[in-house]
């Protein structure tokens, strides 16, 4: 063997270093905490614990209620989202872009903002004059609001690229619009519909902020909420871990369904062709299918804005919410809007940066380093709910609890999959010959990464980083478990205010929610301008 040959063999290429970095990150911040949760949940005698858990009436009741709620939410979401998705894939019409943007709003909206919006609409003293707090109806409405965009985007996007050519083919074979929908469009979309449903199910099953705000009475507490209550109010870590274990199992099963189907749903079949304008009947159909979700999406946001300046119990326009929100911290034991915004931005910047580096490293390891298993593993943080993650970090790394970096790392972990998913397609799209050409021109692996790959990745990177930042801004569950008062982010500040009596606190909460929404909207608008989102 030549001297130095071994050295060449272990040289750190970008792919290899990326794989090591990403593996270490996922191992320390995800695997170890989850193992800690499972170990704690199973206790010293796993078998006995499992039997106990299975027999525990409290757990069974919570699991049953959560399953029922999540199933109903999913069915309703698909029922409302599917016609919209079909309409989007079928026609082009004026206002389509705006509507698509509107439907994306809930997708990136922090759950606390959605909760506050529905509270302003249908809570005590809400804009519609009906108080539905603590009812299943309100929970379902909020979940449909929150998730129907998942169906519209996944199913609509899939069909828009796949269906037009096949619809043409069906027409030349004698199938009219209705028959084509029945025989081509729906069967074609079935994997996409099921994948979207699985995703929606996971979201609703692990729903946290929405439940905590809209059904504080506990009747519709999800396992996720119970985990939080066990940790925060009672410090019963054993119960929390058992609940988390149960939740993980269900979420993993649904997540497995999603990943299995998503691969099939994501196959682009042929190039998109321009869509036709709807005829008269089509216009009616469009209005009927798109109006309800459009109203449902816009109403809570409008109510939020209105109620922030007309809190219940006040006459006319009142700015008490605004002055209370920006009052210095400490007054009434709540954090000020200034400090919460500052905290949120700090966490978003730090976690966004880490997520971008780790997410890109991970994508590199998958595509260039051959670390295949990381492709799947990169989705794990998405499948793990925030409170469970917080609990895991609490159990595994108690020293991180209540520190800036503890929560920043948690947010980075949650944001990483978005970066990876956004970068992967661009990276895969770079033809191998381009790298080879650079190599024959004298560029080593690092120089190739810098001069050939990176420029092609920029749009995806910006998209992914923006998503990671938006996710950090809105993250609630992990922050609630891991944070301490001085580090309170905007979602925490909103929740604090909502929990306090009085019109002033209520209005201040809505003002903070508006602020958070605006911040998120700015990020998303920048994203839209600078880059495109990847495969989510």
């Amino acid at each position, binding site marked *: 063997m030549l001297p130095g040959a071994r050295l060449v063999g272990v040289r750190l290429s970008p792919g290899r270093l990326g794989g090591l970095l990403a593996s270490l990150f996922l191992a320390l911040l995800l695997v170890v905490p989850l193992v800690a949760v499972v170990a704690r949940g199973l206790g010293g005698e796993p078998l006995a614990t499992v039997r106990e858990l299975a027999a525990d009436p409290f757990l069974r009741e919570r699991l049953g209620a959560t399953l029922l709620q999540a199933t109903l939410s999913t069915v309703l979401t698909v029922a409302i989202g599917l016609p919209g998705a079909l309409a989007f894939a079928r026609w082009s019409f004026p206002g389509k872009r705006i509507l698509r943007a509107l439907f994306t709003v809930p997708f990136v909206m922090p759950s606390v903002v959605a909760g506050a919006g529905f509270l302003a609409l249908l809570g005590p003293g809400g804009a519609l004059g009906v108080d539905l707090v603590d009812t299943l109806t309100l929970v379902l409405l909020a979940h449909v609001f929150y998730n129907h965009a998942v169906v519209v985007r996944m199913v609509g996007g899939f069909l828009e690229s*796949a269906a037009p*050519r*096949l619809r*043409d*083919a*069906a*027409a*030349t*074979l*004698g*199938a*009219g619009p209705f*028959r084509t929908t029945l*025989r*081509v469009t729906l*069967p*074609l979309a*079935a994997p996409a519909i099921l994948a979207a449903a699985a995703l929606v199910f996971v979201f609703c099953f692990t729903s946290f902020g929405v439940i905590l705000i809209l059904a504080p009475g506990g009747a519709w507490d999800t396992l996720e909420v119970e985990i939080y209550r066990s940790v925060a109010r009672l410090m019963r870590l054993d119960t929390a871990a058992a609940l988390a274990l149960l939740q993980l199992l269900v979420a993993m099963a649904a997540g497995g369904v999603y990943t299995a189907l998503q691969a099939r749903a994501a*196959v682009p*079949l*042929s*190039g998109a062709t*321009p869509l036709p304008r709807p005829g008269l009947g089509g216009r009616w159909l469009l209005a009927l299918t798109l109006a309800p979700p459009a109203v449902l999406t816009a109403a809570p946001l409008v109510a939020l804005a209105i109620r922030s300046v007309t809190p219940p119990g006040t006459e006319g326009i009142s700015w008490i919410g605004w002055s209370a929100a920006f009052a210095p911290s400490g007054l009434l034991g709540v954090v000020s809007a200034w400090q919460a915004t500052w905290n949120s931005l700090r966490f978003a910047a730090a976690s966004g940066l880490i997520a971008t580096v780790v997410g890109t490293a991970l994508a590199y390891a998958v595509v260039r380093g051959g670390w295949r298993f990381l492709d799947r593993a990169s989705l794990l943080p998405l499948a793990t709910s925030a409170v469970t993650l917080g609990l895991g970090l609490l159990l595994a790394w108690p020293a991180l609890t209540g520190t800036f970096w503890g929560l920043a790392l948690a947010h980075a972990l949650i944001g990483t999959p978005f970066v990876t998913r956004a970068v992967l397609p661009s990276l895969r799209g770079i033809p191998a010959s381009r790298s080879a050409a650079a190599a024959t021109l004298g560029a080593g692996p690092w120089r190739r990464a810098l001069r050939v790959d990176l420029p092609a990745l920029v749009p995806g990177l910006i998209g992914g980083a923006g998503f990671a930042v938006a996710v950090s801004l809105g993250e609630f569950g992990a922050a609630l478990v891991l944070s301490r008062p001085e580090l309170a982010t905007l979602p925490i500040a909103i929740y604090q205010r909502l929990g306090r009596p009085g019109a002033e606190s209520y209005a201040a909460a809505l003002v903070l929610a508006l602020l958070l929404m605006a911040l998120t909207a700015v990020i998303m608008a920048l994203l839209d301008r600078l880059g495109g989102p990847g495969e989510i």
Partner: protein
Amino acid sequence: MPRVALELSGVVRRYGEVRAVDGVDLIVPPGRTLALLGPSGCGKSTLLRVVAGLEPPDAGTLRMDGRDLAGVPPQRRGIGMVFQDYALFPHLTVKDNVAFGLVERGWPVAEREARVTELLDAVDLTGLERRRPHELSGGQQQRVALARALAPRPALLLLDEPLSNLDRTLRDELTDELAELLSELDVQAIHVTHDQNEAFALADRVAVMHAGRIVQEGTPDELLDAPRNAWMARFLGLRELIPAGQAKELGFAGTTLLRVEKLRPDPDGRPFEVRRVHRVGTDLELALTSPEWGLALRWQVRPRELGTTPEPGDTIRLRVPDDAWTVLEVEG
């Protein structure tokens, strides 16, 4: 097989400002196959989609056997189509793809099965019934698409560049196969293609399209014998064109085509200077200039006919018969 006459008059199709099809008049007599030939972007595929009913014309009328097709949706036209990317249904097997149109037309199960079997046999895909489209090669997919379009016995079959997604050798092979199959099944077809050889091999008549209009229509021989204008001649690969100005000096009324294949060696002929010589198969191709007329041309010849192989710089004499000149555009 039914025979229909298709009649297009003044058909226009716009995309915003662009007139993809810009006033097409075309008659396809009953029983005749037609090829729409043209460079990419000339509007030929759009015209085909208008005929199929997939896009409405912005102006003009389409008639099939005298019946106006305006407002008739594609599913009621009885026109079959083979798409460029085949557009096979990925969720259906080969068999179900072929049976798709039969189900729509309410064929009884037994007849449906028989027809599918018959067609899969005709396109040589027996045994692959249970496969999904993605498990087939490009050539096999193309044949499934053909069988699917033919199954419901369409009055007219439209083929949109059905061979363009295949590699060169496979394409040549399948061109012949397709021509044989269509004549065997006695199918009246309109082919869209940008490949001249394919058009000439597949169709009785060829309509050449350029910038949304039909430039010329006729049998392959008619087109080659009398191209209507310089663009047409160039498109057909007839390269030795003399621009109008220069042609006038030689006594012609306008842009003139020199048919080099009619030039023959003749000691009493005109002098040409040899610039380059290279072999094309067993033939020689000479790049020649005529000092007399200031023309540059390429001329193919069998080495035997010349006796010796000329060198660059040599002068050879060629007889240019009168019928070697074709005046294309007479300038008014």
